[in-house]
Structure formats: C-alpha cells, structure tokens
C-alpha cells in the first residue's frame, strides 16, 4: 500500500513546502516529535541539495505499509548534473566539516534506509525510508 504526494523544488520556498508536507505525513503516521523533526531535516537536506546543485527537481513523500509496519518514504529526484564521486560525498566530514549541514551521510543517519542512484549528466534519484517502531 502506498499513498503519495509531492512538491516541485524550484525556489527556496519550496524547501519549506516539502518540509511541511513531510512533517504532516510523519505526524499523521504517528511519528513522535523528535522523529518528525528528523524526517523533516532529511527532507530539508535533500530539497536543499536539489535547489543548490540541480536547480530543480521533485520531492515525493509516500506512506508505506510493509508486513504491517508503517513507514515514510522520501524520494528526491532531479535531472541535474549528477554526483561524479558518490563515495567521496558519502564520506564523513566531507560536507559537514565546514558546518554546511548534514550532507548525504546525515540523511542516511536520520533515516532507516538510504539508496542513491546517480548518472553524471542525467540526474540523481535518492530514496530514504524511515519505519515507525
């Protein structure tokens, strides 16, 4: 079962809209305050990456149910330049040492599952899931 909705990311305001959408869904699913804030932060980070590096893209939020467990899936998709060196971007300290924010390792930590597909010149597709414990 899945239930979806999405936000196009074009301006910085859309980041806020994506956050709001994610927080609403998370709340509705029954996530506590701290997890709501974590899910929202992950969305914020992904939306900001689209806004800063791809120019435009889309954040999609899906409600999941698997084996009776509910969860939230964030999809961040863009047709931007792609990430040339994924290994490096996923390294600790690469994006955070300057305090630039959580970076992709941060998103991975905030969520339970994380998957990235990127093709240089074609775009990036990131999927991150958090399950309701």
């Amino acid at each position, binding site marked *: 079962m899945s239930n979806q909705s999405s936000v196009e990311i074009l301006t910085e305001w859309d980041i*806020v809209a994506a956050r709001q959408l994610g927080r609403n869904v998370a709340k509705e699913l029954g996530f506590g305050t701290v997890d709501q804030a974590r899910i929202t932060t992950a969305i914020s980070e992904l939306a900001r990456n689209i806004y800063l590096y791809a120019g435009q893209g889309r954040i999609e939020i899906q409600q999941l149910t698997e084996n009776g467990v509910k969860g939230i899936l964030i999809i961040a998709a863009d047709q931007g330049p792609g990430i040339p060196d994924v*290994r490096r971007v996923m390294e*600790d300290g690469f994006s955070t040492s*300057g305090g*630039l924010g959580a970076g992709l390792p941060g998103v991975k930590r905030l969520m339970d599952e994380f998957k990235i597909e990127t093709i240089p010149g074609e775009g990036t597709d990131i999927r991150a899931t958090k399950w309701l414990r």
Partner: protein
Amino acid sequence: MVHKIENQYKEILNQYMQRQSEQNLYVGQNFSRQLISENISPEEVISVHKAAMQEIYKELPDVVWHSFDFLIEMMINYGLALQERQSLLQRQEEIRVEMDLAANVQETLLKTKLPALKGLDIGLLSIPARKMNGDYIYFISDEEGHAGIAVADVIGKGLPAALCMSMVKFGMDSLNNSPASPSEVLGVINRVVEKSIDDSMFVSMFYGRYDASTAALTYGSAGHEPAILYRSKTGEFDELYAKGLLLGVSPAAAYEEHTVQLEENDLVIMMTDGVTEGRTDEGFIEREVIFELIQQKKDEPAQTIVQHVYDELERMQNAELRDDFTLVIYKKV
C-alpha cells in the same frame, strides 16, 4: 560576536513563538548549522535560549529557568563529545594526507615499464580498493624479443599488503630484466617471500613469458586466478591453468609451466580476483558476463577492451570496489 548571536537567536525564537510555522523552524535549523560551524556548543545554545526566553517572557515562573540550568549541566558532556569530533576530523585529514603521500611513494616505487614488443598490443589497469594497492603488475623484457608479464595479489588489502608488495618488486628486480621461464621466476620470488614475510601473509602470482619470434606463451601460476585465452578463430575462451602453491607457503614449492601458441587476434587476459569476484546486489558477477564484455570490444585496441570491462563492472557494482582490481590484456597482432 556572541552578542550578535544572542540577538539573532532571540529574533528567530521570537518569530517562532509568535507563529509555530514550518518556515520559522526552517530558519531556526539553518541558524543551528551556523552555530555548529562557529563551534557554539549545545550548552551555550541552551544558555542563549534561556536568556532569550527571559527577555521575551520575564513573567514565567522560576521553575522554567531552573529547568534550563539543569539542561545546561546535562549538555556539558555533549559539548565535549562534539569538540572531540572536531579533533577527530582534523586527525582524519592528517592521516588522509599521509596516506596520499604514501600512495604516491608506492606508485613511484612500484612503477614498471611497458615493453614495446613487435606483434603484442598490451592494455592494463590496476585500481586499488582503498588508498594503497595490494595488486601488482611487473614487466620484464630483453633485447631478443622476450617479455615477462607478472600479475600478483597479496592476500589482504591496504597498508600491510602494500608493504609486502614492495618485496615482490625487488625480488623481480633481482632478475635483472632477463625474462626467465615461469617455473624459475616463481621459484625465486617464492623464496624471497618465504624468507621476508611472516606466516600469515601470502602472495599469489601469475607469470607469462612471451617469445615474439615464435608467438609462444609459456605460463605458470602460484595459486593465482587462471588467465584466460580468447581464441579469435573459434570465439572460445580457455582457462590457462597451472599448478603451484601460493608464494611464501613453502621454500620447496615447485611450479608447473605450460606453453600455448598464440594466433593473430588472440587475447590473453590476466587478472586478479578483484575482477572475477565483483559483487552486485544480486550476487557474484558471473565469468560469462566478463567474457561477454571482452567480446563486445574484441576488435578494439587492448587498452580499450580493458577500460570497457572496468567501466561496466564498476557500474554493475555501484562504484563499490571490494578488492583491488587488476586487469592486463594482451593481443597478438
């Protein structure tokens, strides 16, 4: 500066207290990144928060202020852990610089010269899984049209493997560029390895000696991944297998050698297990997949074939190399 932060914080908090909107939380969270980048510790954040609340809501009961004091005390150890992160990041950077330098030294140390041999087109690639390479390619050649090509793999990765590899190189150097027969070469290196490294370290090696005048390839193996011979005429792939113990196991080990006759456009494919033991989410990559990749480019120069195989295998594995990857292809032209 602290004063500026206090004012900004009060401003942002005040906005949020007026209206608990996502917009105001977004602004707050962006501000928290700035605080981290300025090394403001969590106990300071609580302290600034308390001061801002005191200005905005003077009338709140004392229990609220005591509660913040308690939080400040609780956060001191968290602040220390964060400072530790800073120094760990710095230490990590220092190690990265040292490793890069060491990888450079290793590269210069282990460099080998591609032989320019009539009738043989050689392509090669050796990519370490981490900083330091535990795989190794070594060429020997003489004036009379003989070329020795060795591919070796230290069992293990990283630094310890890289240190061992320097030994193989100097063992090969001691042959003074005379491409001897495989059983001789493997015997010499076996004794060097056996003498110089401890019992937990082993090296596998495949050695082929090509004679340009007869187009015959004589090969031997020390517990190494067999090479593959692609027959242009039939389109078939044959294993070049030879019996022999890993280097360093026993000083008395003996090494078989076999000879094959190369025909025009035949390919000899030497590699390490990093090529054949790649894994995708679905499991190991089948040998047939590699054969398929080679066949796709068989009419191109050897280097193009090598690069194609690497690119495709890397893509299948999501750019995650689990082991050092070394591939040498030579083509009889």
